[in-house]
């Protein structure tokens, strides 16, 4: 009874404040304290069920997915595109290989390179670009065949710059020799980006 008596003995204004604000707020807070843990456990269980449902739905196709991923990793390792790049041994050896490849293409068309100038090596994304400038003299049909051979080469050879100069005076039916400057680039994978059989087998856990 002491609590009720104490409340009754308050001044009217305080009594009203107590009755209209403090008591309802205390009642709501008590109710919240009681309901919050219950609601929390409900929500946690509901979330757990949703997560489990999602996990089981995804795991239903896990075996097929793993097989498919394994196949993709295998086909990636065996991809012919890797052979388009020069091996990541050293810049000088890749540059020499590039010069040899392009020189072989030129010589296949009876064109002898007059001058070879190595270009500065630069990084392009995950690749290292190795370039060489070839200066030579060739007729237009030879140029056409050289460009076609470069496009279909087993390595990816990109013509970065092409300068062709013809004599200004020539006969109508003459196939005059042209001065050719050809900047060709090859690509080498930056060390660490290449796939290894170890990493592929480590990724496959049947």
């Amino acid at each position, binding site marked *: 009874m002491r609590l009720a008596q104490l409340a009754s003995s308050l001044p009217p204004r305080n009594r009203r404040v107590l009755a209209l604000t403090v008591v309802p707020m205390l009642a709501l807070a008590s109710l919240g304290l009681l309901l919050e843990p219950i609601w929390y456990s409900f929500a946690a269980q509901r979330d757990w069920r949703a997560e489990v449902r999602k996990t089981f739905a995804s795991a239903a196709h*896990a075996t097929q997915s793993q097989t498919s991923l394994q196949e993709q990793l295998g086909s990636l390792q065996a991809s012919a595109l890797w052979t388009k790049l020069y091996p990541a041994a050293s810049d000088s050896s890749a540059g020499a290989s590039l010069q040899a490849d392009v020189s072989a293409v030129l010589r296949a068309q009876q064109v002898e390179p007059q001058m070879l100038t190595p270009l500065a090596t630069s990084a392009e994304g995950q690749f290292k670009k190795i370039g060489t400038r070839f200066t030579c003299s060739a007729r237009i049909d030879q140029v056409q065949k050289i460009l076609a051979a470069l496009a279909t080469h087993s390595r990816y050879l990109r013509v970065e710059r092409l300068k*062709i100069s013809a004599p200004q005076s020539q006969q109508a039916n003459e196939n005059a020799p042209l001065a050719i400057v050809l900047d060709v680039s090859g*690509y080498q994978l930056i060390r660490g980006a290449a796939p290894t059989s170890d990493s592929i087998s480590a990724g496959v856990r049947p």
Partner: protein
Amino acid sequence: MQTLNAIRSGWARRRASTVATELVSFGHWWLSELKDCAKAFRSKLLGDNASYVLIVDDDQASLQPFPIEAGAQPLLLAVTALPQSRDVIAAPGKANPHLRIYLRGHRVLFCAFALPSMDERHVADAIGLQAERRSPIDIHELYLGWRIARTYEDGSREVELAMVRRSDVDLLRRIASTSGWDLKAVIPGEPEAESTGAPNLLPRSSARLAFTMGSTEKKLLACACGLALVWMLTIWGQSVYERWTLDEQVEHAQAQLRQIADQTALLKKQSAPVVALRELMQRPDAASALEAFSASLPHDAWIYDAELQTTPQGIQIHVEGYAKSAPALTSALEDSRRFTSVQLVQASASSQNADEQRFELRAQLSSGVRR
């Protein structure tokens, strides 16, 4: 030890009882305080209700303010004029004035009788039986009001019973309601009789209900709490059981999904160079630009100097040569839509052929997909 437990248990019971009493009394205080607040608010908003007393005799009624002042002249009305009664008084507040009706004369049948000693619970039924026995009218057509006038030492009671036709009371209720009165009570007898505990004949539905926490209510509350507890325990048990039974399967499935995620990440990482190389191979180079430029040249044009160079924006082309019309050549290149920024740098008459123009132009092959 048993004594100690008994003392502890008794102390706990007393303490629980004290807390419950405190809470109940505080709850009562709070409710009564809320009621007072509501009354004060209503009074402030609508003004105080005026109260009136209507004393209905056989064919005449008298209306006067309540409490009745000695010597005040009541307003006399015919019973048939009751519907207009609200109009003849001044309404000091916005709310409907209260009205208490006292029924006298032949409209009320009074009787008194004694009841033998009996349990309190059976008193109402016993009075109903007495009323049925004593009433000349069917009991279902009557409203009954009674009071215990006296209780003797041997437990017997003296009862005063009032019976009024339901049709009379219902008519008065209807009239009061449609005339804008707030009917508070219909009491058989004189106004002075109310202080002695005269009954209110208004049907119980319009009377204020009181709620007391008896043993039945306590049992019901305990049952409800027990049911809630059982329900919560069931839900909790279900969640524990679900987690316990599914834990291993969930872990296995999550391990599989983690493996798939690892493989996917590895595949994405290792395929990135291949994707980049494919994109690089699809970008045009100087050789493909020369091929595209040659295809776009008119048959009557030929070039003697060409320089094509790849840049991040595309392939920059610079050519010099001869054509029938240098502006027409420029238009043809622009119309092909493969070249942008086509710019005729210089055009002059050819020194070798009067029908030809020597030209120098720049253009750019957009870095789209290789043809």
